[in-house]
């Protein structure tokens, strides 16, 4: 075990997979000589050489499409989209091609491609560099989608993604790259895709988070007058229904915390499933805590307000538990939350 920053945990995961399997290659913009825009491939070029660690032209369609082609031969390319937003210029290759090749070929072709991308807000990067955009990928059968919530999950999920024979997207919340925690490395630390993690236990409410909202939920629960099961979903596609349903069956209340706009957020799926399948267990309305339906604002004060923070999450859950009614989001109340 060592204390690693999330970016170092990512380097470690890539290095361990490249060591384990000679078919793993890494490419993308600025990943080789510069060690990655977020330093997530630092030292890989020196260690594994230019054939396996490549700087590409600025061409997301190019390296997603070529990555797909290479993956079909059995290589395991890990490509990096610098900011998830840039997937926009290449989405066809992922959603309509990589995720469909296996299906279209009747199972004859596999696409063991991994796409890593930085995502999310909190760093003052403005409207075009702060989105999470998992919803672009969410309704894509054939694809797996995992989201890291810190160094440990970044390591474990990325390794699982590389080992998976399907195309997998791993999102890395940008504000967490510098975050540190004890990380166990090695095969035992691989986190299977499709499994959620119960990171805290309690009786009053089930809080489901993803990416950086997991930390938000844990901090919200720390000094609250209630106790919560806090679930890190870890994989969104496919998501771990059993863990969530089992928790809700005990607590009777579900709160989903998302950092993206309310309309169409990933939590709608969790909320709908729980509302339908756990109907008899619920003692309070299913609640989503999200950002408002506006682009991510650039000014730090506005961005901080936009993102649901721990105090706000705690206050919303206080309201839910006190009143038994759906808490109204800050932008629709005079209370403004915390």
């Amino acid at each position, binding site marked *: 075990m060592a204390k690693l920053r999330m970016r170092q945990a990512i380097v470690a995961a890539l290095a361990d997979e490249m060591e384990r399997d000679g078919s793993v290659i890494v490419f993308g913009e600025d990943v080789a000589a510069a060690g990655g825009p977020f330093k997530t491939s630092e030292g890989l070029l020196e260690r594994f050489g230019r054939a396996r660690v490549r700087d590409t032209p*600025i061409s997301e369609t190019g390296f997603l499409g070529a990555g797909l082609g290479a993956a079909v031969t059995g290589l395991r390319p890990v490509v990096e989209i610098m900011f998830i937003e840039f997937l926009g210029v290449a989405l066809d290759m992922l959603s309509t091609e990589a995720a469909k090749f296996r299906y279209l070929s009747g199972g004859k072709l596999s696409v063991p491609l991994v796409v890593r991308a930085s995502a999310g807000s909190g760093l003052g990067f403005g409207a075009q560099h702060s989105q999470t955009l998992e919803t672009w990928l969410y309704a894509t059968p054939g694809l797996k989608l995992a989201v890291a919530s810190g160094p440990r999950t970044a390591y474990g999920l990325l390794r699982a993604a590389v080992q998976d024979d399907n195309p997998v997207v791993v999102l890395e919340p940008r504000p967490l790259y510098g975050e540190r925690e004890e990380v166990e490395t090695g095969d035992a630390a691989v986190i299977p895709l499709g499994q959620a993690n119960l990171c805290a236990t309690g009786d009053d409410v089930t809080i489901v988070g993803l990416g950086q909202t997991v930390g938000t939920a844990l901090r919200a629960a720390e000094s609250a007058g209630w106790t919560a099961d806090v679930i890190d979903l870890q994989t969104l596609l496919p998501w771990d229904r059993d863990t969530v349903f089992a928790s809700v069956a005990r607590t009777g209340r579900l709160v989903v915390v998302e950092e993206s706009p309310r309309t169409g957020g990933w939590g709608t799926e969790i909320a709908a499933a729980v509302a339908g399948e756990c109907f008899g267990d619920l003692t309070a309305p299913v609640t989503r805590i999200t950002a408002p339906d506006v682009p991510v604002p*650039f000014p730090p004060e506005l961005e901080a307000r936009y993102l649901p923070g721990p105090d706000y999450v705690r206050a919303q859950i206080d309201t839910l538990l006190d009143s038994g009614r759906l808490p109204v989001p800050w932008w629709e109340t005079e209370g403004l939350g915390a």
Partner: protein
Amino acid sequence: MSPAAAPLEPDPMTLLPPERPVQLLDDEGALHEVDGFPLDLKDSDFRDLYRYMVLARRVDSEAINLQRQGQLGVYASLLGQEAAQVGGAYALAEQDWVFPSYREMGAALVRGVDPGSVLHLFRGTWLSNHDPIATRFGLLSIPIGTQALHATGYAMAAKFDGKDLVVMSYFGDGATSEGDPHEAMNFAAVYDAPVVFFVQNNQYAISVPLSKQTKAPTIAHKAVGYGMPGFRADGNDVLATYAVSRRAIDRARAGQGPSLIEAVTYRMEAHTTADDPTRYRTASELAEWKVRDPIARFETFLEREGLLDDAFRAEIDEEARGYATRMRAEVYDAPHGDPLELFEHVYVEPPERFDEQRALLRAELERRE
């Protein structure tokens, strides 16, 4: 064929660019006319070109200072690219449009855009305060290369409307690897759209050198595949970037369609203030380009022509100081966004709930005061 013997006129059959960039000022600042690229400039224009380059450099270094003082989140410097940006933009007519990337402060100045207003984008106070319509200077495009398509669409629409208008789209060498600029160039050529695609080949895309970006002999060669002329200009020679742009703009205005210009230059600063270029390029390479400084070269020319005296230098210095002061005043500790702005400009007509939410927020803010 030796480069010196290469014709500078694009061959109408092949549209191939000459290998040697068009250069009007040699390294010693002596003027050599080049066939096909006549200079139509008066003394006052020479002075203006110089003024803009010096102002651009000054504004640029002030922006870097502001970033170092924590006033801007990030900034992308144009140092070394003054001639490329200024020469191109100076050849445009009043009514013409520019679709820039994030590095075009020099072009912005020529278009009369107040640099302080642009810096709001880098400070995050508000997206950008400049008025794209009034200045005919579009949004600084951050997603790489996308503005080439916006420029093409704008130009096609202007043609459709019968407007006498040319659009210049600036982008980088790295951007030529993206699909968008290719689709833009093909579109523009097919529709004879009045566009000038102006590539500042500053040799790097963040850490990736040109050699890893393309195998084409030059970026200008790419034009051939779309059936438009490709021109190369010495990007550190403001008269060359001007003369080549003049020709491409005149062609476009005359209804002869788009062209691609490659201005060969060098990014003297880091990619942005967040980048460390020592990781991927050498001090000796930097030194090689430093002696080709675009402003120093043009100064030599102006001195030879007797167009640069102390009074003029002092005048520009004064003006530059004024710009710097105004820029600082504009962004230094500029308030970071009124919370009410959160719901601003998301839709033309805000959904009813936005208005309600905004009213509630205003009431709350007033209550707190």
